[in-house]
């Protein structure tokens, strides 16, 4: 027991624990919509895109780099939405081109001019212990904003995720909802980037939602489970990272992945069948014929 309580005596750890749990919950909540829309890859792409903005912003507006990186991410998300709607390019290809090009630009800028803010490694893998008060305030604000968005637009979000064409006919402003979701997603990635890291944010967007889908057939319960699983992964991962001496983001993702394996072992084929439809390419895979 003493071993468990020991890290809590450090203020930096208490702060890290709260931030990790909140980050996990935030990504778990928004991840449900991303996964059910078959957009899992966008989390991966946007986190890389924001990294590019991060690097560029440090050159021109170092004191506002977080704001500038956020705007860069939002612009990338909206650009992807526009490219997909206006051209014959699929979402996966649009995400690949726009966001990875942005990431490459970030790497080039870091290499050429160096960084006046967070180090390259911290940006990639997260550095929860070096998080500033301003970043904590930002994370709390984005979490409150996301929760309010999901709560107040619950029905419109659900309808436009399940069936956008019928939702539009039924009076839902689908384009507005999609744009708002992209903005909230960009902000959530930006707020958690310094905690979990560029390379690992995408995993925490997807893993809690997939585990939750394996556990339930109800949308409302999936939202609650995914948020709780994200929160628990953040909490446990932070604790384990203290003892293992590895970056917090890495351990948070490993805890989530372990939970996935455990739930898969328990739910077996039933869980797999539920989650099969999460990937549009596997729509009919393992599907039971309707009675």
């Amino acid at each position, binding site marked *: 027991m003493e071993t468990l309580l020991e890290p809590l005596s450090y203020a930096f750890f208490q702060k890290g624990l709260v931030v990790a749990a909140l980050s996990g919950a935030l990504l778990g909540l928004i991840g449900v919509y991303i996964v059910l829309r078959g957009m899992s890859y966008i989390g991966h792409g946007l986190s890389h895109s924001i990294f590019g903005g991060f690097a560029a912003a440090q050159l021109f507006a170092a004191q506002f780099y977080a704001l500038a990186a956020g705007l860069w991410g939002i612009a990338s998300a909206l650009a992807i939405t526009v490219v997909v709607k206006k051209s014959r390019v699929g979402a996966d290809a649009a995400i690949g081109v726009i966001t990875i090009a942005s990431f490459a630009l970030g790497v080039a800028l870091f290499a050429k001019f160096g960084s006046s803010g967070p180090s390259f490694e911290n940006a990639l893998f997260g550095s929860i212990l070096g998080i500033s008060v301003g970043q904590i305030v930002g994370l709390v604000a984005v979490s409150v904003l996301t929760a309010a968005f999901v709560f107040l637009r619950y029905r419109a979000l659900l309808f436009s995720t*399940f069936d956008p064409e019928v939702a539009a006919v039924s009076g839902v402003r689908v384009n507005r909802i999609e744009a708002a979701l992209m903005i909230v997603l960009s902000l959530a990635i930006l707020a958690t980037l310094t905690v979990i890291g560029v390379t690992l944010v995408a995993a925490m967007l997807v893993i809690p939602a997939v585990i939750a889908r394996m556990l339930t057939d109800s949308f409302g319960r999936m939202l609650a489970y995914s948020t709780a699983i994200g929160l628990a992964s953040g909490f446990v991962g932070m604790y384990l990272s203290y003892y293992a001496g590895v970056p917090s983001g890495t351990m948070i993702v490993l805890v989530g992945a372990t939970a996935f394996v455990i739930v898969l072992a328990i739910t077996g084929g039933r869980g797999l069948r539920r989650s099969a439809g999460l990937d549009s390419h596997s729509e009919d895979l393992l599907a039971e014929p*309707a009675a």
Partner: protein
Amino acid sequence: MTGTGVGPELIRLDGASASYGHHRVLTDVSFHVHEDQFTGIVGPSGAGKTTLLRLLLGTLAPIAGDVSRRPDLRVSYVPQLETVNWNFPVTVMECVLMSRTRGRRLPWASRQEKADVHGVLDRLGIGGLAERHIRQLSGGQQQRMFLARALLRQPQLLLMDEPTSGVDVSTRHDILHLLGDLHEDGVAIVLTTHDLNGMAAHLPHLVCVNHRIVADGTPAEVITPAVLEQTFGARMEVLEHLGMRVVVDEAPSNFMAGGG
């Protein structure tokens, strides 16, 4: 059933054309939907039936021509079952409630909303399935669930895309009866179908489509070998059975003779 469309007008397409990119799907379509209409849009796959529905729905803008709608018209749409992600995590109750997009903003349903959903599910004969996941329903039950979602909005016009596709004969009869009852209650209905004998022949009004409107009228007027050949591009025979038109493919011997 009556309803070839003589009541007040709900939607009007005048010379409308539609395309996806450079691919023209419909050309110069004029089609009026009235309050007491019950119409089947008939045609082969790829003829533009669903595109015509999209023009009526307003989810697709015409590249030429005009579409006008009565202000504040309440329209409900039932999509093809094949287009739905049946693995999506929603129960029947959650799915039907989706159409309540106005008024209450809280995520959970009020007591009144739950009563409304149970009422419409009972009416459609699936009252005990509210807590089931949507994939656990049969094809007919899935169709009724979407009908329930559409009816919860109390529509003036119901548009349905292939409502009897993939369902058995008994379910097809049930759906036809349900739609007949709804029409009697004053709901205008426009649906697409490629099922000539099981569906189209039972409807009061048909529109035959093959990238344009080929013919328009009662089944007796449009289910003729000439119209069917123009619509489907294949020769068919039309027989009379108990006062109804029955379409049969041309006899196999004719095919063999034609094919040499």
